[in-house]
């Protein structure tokens, strides 16, 4: 029988907390950027300008057809060199965090844009007609009338996607970035207590994600009765 020894967990807590901060930072920035870029992609996809809708469709299909971990590796391996040569950063600047955030954001935007596109299409066409009939421009009608209703319907889905994104941040371990999962792995590896640390990390992920999805569920049922 395996002999559990949890003693290295308490000492590692400050280090793990630093990792958690990185995980949360990636999640929050990728969600925010993903929603903004995803909204723009959705509007392009629905646009009557051929080139824009083709571009958006191509973008979404590309990112949805490749594994996330591969996108992260591209960004880890290629983008820093690119930035170094474009902006003349000194060689070896640590850009793992920013390239991880960029990778997640661009990848998630593809998923967000599909959620948002469905949300926009869920708003009855007459709303756009009514806003236009009052003299609003396309942009005003979208911003003031269609998008607020679309987002209201979409909040649960957007949050759920955010929870998935939080779990997926563990994939940044491929760039040796010490996010929460990476930090747990490092400590476990150092102390020879990998099983305990990974079980602990798993429990933390579970508590956070389960709680968050219960909150989303609660919000969803409130939305339905409203």
């Amino acid at each position: 029988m395996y002999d559990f020894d949890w003693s290295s967990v308490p000492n590692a807590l400050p280090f793990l907390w630093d990792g958690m901060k990185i995980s949360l930072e990636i999640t929050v920035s990728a969600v925010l950027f993903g929603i903004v870029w995803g909204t723009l992609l959705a509007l392009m996809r629905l646009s009557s300008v051929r080139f824009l809708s083709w571009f958006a469709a191509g973008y979404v299909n590309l990112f949805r057809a490749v594994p996330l971990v591969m996108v992260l590796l591209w960004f880890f391996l290629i983008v820093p060199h690119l930035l170094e040569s474009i902006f003349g950063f000194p060689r070896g600047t640590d850009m793992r965090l920013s390239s991880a955030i960029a990778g997640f954001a661009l990848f998630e935007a593809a998923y967000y844009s599909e959620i948002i596109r469905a949300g926009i299409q869920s708003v009855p066409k007459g709303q756009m007609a009514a806003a236009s009939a009052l003299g609003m421009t396309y942009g005003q009608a979208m911003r003031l009338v269609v998008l607020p209703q679309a987002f209201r319907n979409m909040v649960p889905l957007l949050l759920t996607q955010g929870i998935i994104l939080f779990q997926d941040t563990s994939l940044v371990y491929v760039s040796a970035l010490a996010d929460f999962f990476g930090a747990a792995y490092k400590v476990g590896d150092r102390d020879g207590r990998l099983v305990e640390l990974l079980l602990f990390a798993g429990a933390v992920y579970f508590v956070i994600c389960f709680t968050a999805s219960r909150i989303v569920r609660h919000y969803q049922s409130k939305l339905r009765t409203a």
Partner: protein
Amino acid sequence: MITMNKVSKHYGAFQVLSDCTTQVHKGEVIVVCGPSGSGKSTLIKCVNGLEPFQSGEIIVNGVSVGDPKTDLSKLRSTVGMVFQNFELFPHMSIIDNLAIAQIKVLHRGQEQAHEKGFKLLDRVGLRAQAQKYPGQLSGGQQQRVAIARALAMDPICMLFDEPTSALDPEMVNEVLDVMTELAQEGMTMMCVTHEMGFAKRVASRVIFMDQGRIVEDDSKEAFFERARSERAQQFLAKILHH
């Protein structure tokens, strides 16, 4: 005020409107009727450019609707429109529904827009509902709010697209009363409706459409007493004898 000259529209091979020609003068109330699918809703949606058309021209207050150089948003802000399904903005309170376009399109101040909104709500008898949301109102109330919302823009004319078709029978009259009052005040109106009682009361002219064509365009007396086309006679026989 509104001139249509040989307006035609088709979706692929399907002809929705063929050579529709008519005029609406200032202060006139035109009732547009006809069997479903005859193109009457499409026709009035062409007036404010909500539906594009392929040939012919529509001039509203001196501005050509089909001209690509026309600022359609600006034109629409001067033409009020009321829809079959009300289309109030469900995420805004009633007073905000009335104020939003005044503020964002006409650049009125919030206070002025609200004042105007309250005045119009008074007029349609719904001042007490100002802070509620559209979902809390009955269909008839929502349609009256929609009329007030259009009036808040001080339109030069009003378009009604089957404003009572989605209403329960007991709510039809409250909406027709508001429209009748508006007509009697001299508002230029174009109404797609099956309410022949309304047509008899206030219409200056009746347009009857069938298969995308304007078949009759005559004074209401002439239309109801001696409709010339067989199609219009059949239509009247069907809807008047119930």
